[in-house]
């Protein structure tokens, strides 16, 4: 099902300067995997060498932090918006 992934400003240069991308995905993990397959340069910015999301990378589904959902296994449905936000100024979303 197509979901919208918002690309943070500093990473748009690695994603053909797009603000958002629509991808087919059933989970957040699927969406991020599809995103980094489409734009391979994004992978090293989002993931550490051991394949985990880097600790300052926060991911939200419709403004819900996936850390408080099922993390990368969080299910997504058509129309959902996934946001990738660097954890500046402390990390937890208001």
């Amino acid at each position, binding site marked *: 099902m197509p979901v919208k992934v*918002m*690309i*943070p*400003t*500093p*990473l748009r*240069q690695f994603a053909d300067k797009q603000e958002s991308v629509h991808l087919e995905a059933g989970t957040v993990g699927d969406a991020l995997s599809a995103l980094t397959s489409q734009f391979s340069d994004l992978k090293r*910015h989002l993931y*550490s060498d051991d394949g985990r999301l*880097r*600790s*300052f*990378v*926060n991911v*939200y589904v419709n403004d819900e932090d996936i850390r408080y959902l099922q993390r990368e296994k969080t299910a997504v449905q058509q129309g959902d918006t996934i*946001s*990738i*936000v*660097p*954890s*500046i*100024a*402390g*990390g*937890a*979303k*208001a």
Partner: protein
Amino acid sequence: MASKPIIEESAHCAGRPLGKGLVDLVGKAPLLRLDSLNAEFPNVEFYAKAEWANPGGSVKDRAALYMIREGERSGALRPGKTILDATSGNTGIALAMLGAALGYAVKLCIPVSASHERLAMLSALGANVILTPGEEGSDGAIRRAREIAGENPAKYFYIDQYSNPANPRAHYETTAPEIWSQTNGRVTHFVAGLGTSGTFMGVTRRLKELNPAIRAISVQPDEPFHGLEGLKHMATAMVPAIYDASLADANLTVRTEEAFAMVRKLAREKGLLIGVSSGAAVCACRSVAERLERGERAVIVTIFPDAGDRYLSERFWKEE
């Protein structure tokens, strides 16, 4: 030459009240000796300005006070006007604190990714917070502040810390002379991160006037997408008007994870609870020491912009 600094010692004379007011406590941060690094590089002395000693808990108190006082002096800030700025955190706390202390309303544009603690502190100090999209970072907050200021210029005193000359002047007139005095003029290298660049610009200009041989090293994140709160990747960010890249003798980059690891290590092994940009500063100081000629002696001074208690909700504390 430096003009008369705004931050100075209160006169001690009979009949004056004891203690100091909140505003008088801005500046004069202690110089912390970094013994753990000193042991690793025997020819090098390492020091950091412990800027968390400011009443608002960060180095930003200095620039915020200078920018407010300059606004009052020029007439741009008058009673009834609202102080406005974009901030990812510490400048907002400084402005909210000083605004409350001096009787000004404060409006701040801040990315929604700011921590609960940070937002709660701003709210507790009475500031009006405008949240901006997290994925746009501090640049999105800057754009929103410019819009608000443009829509109603008579209502707002837009501080614009990225373009305001009073920001580096605070460091030219206070931080740099403090470093010179606290090291008895022995400082050989100055290392500082670049955010607004106010600290680096102001301190470097003054120290090089006092001793042109002093080397100034600026520090940036190694990539545009990073977790180093307060620091900017100048090649890809909106470059502050006050920034002059030619002032640095060298520019070092630090990876986010490297700074996180240093913050954890210094907390767990040395009892030093420093902030993320302070961790990046320590990493850069080590790099400077590693690049010295064999046997070369050096006195390296850096800035610790804030303490680690502002970052306790970060996930990196749980990593090994």
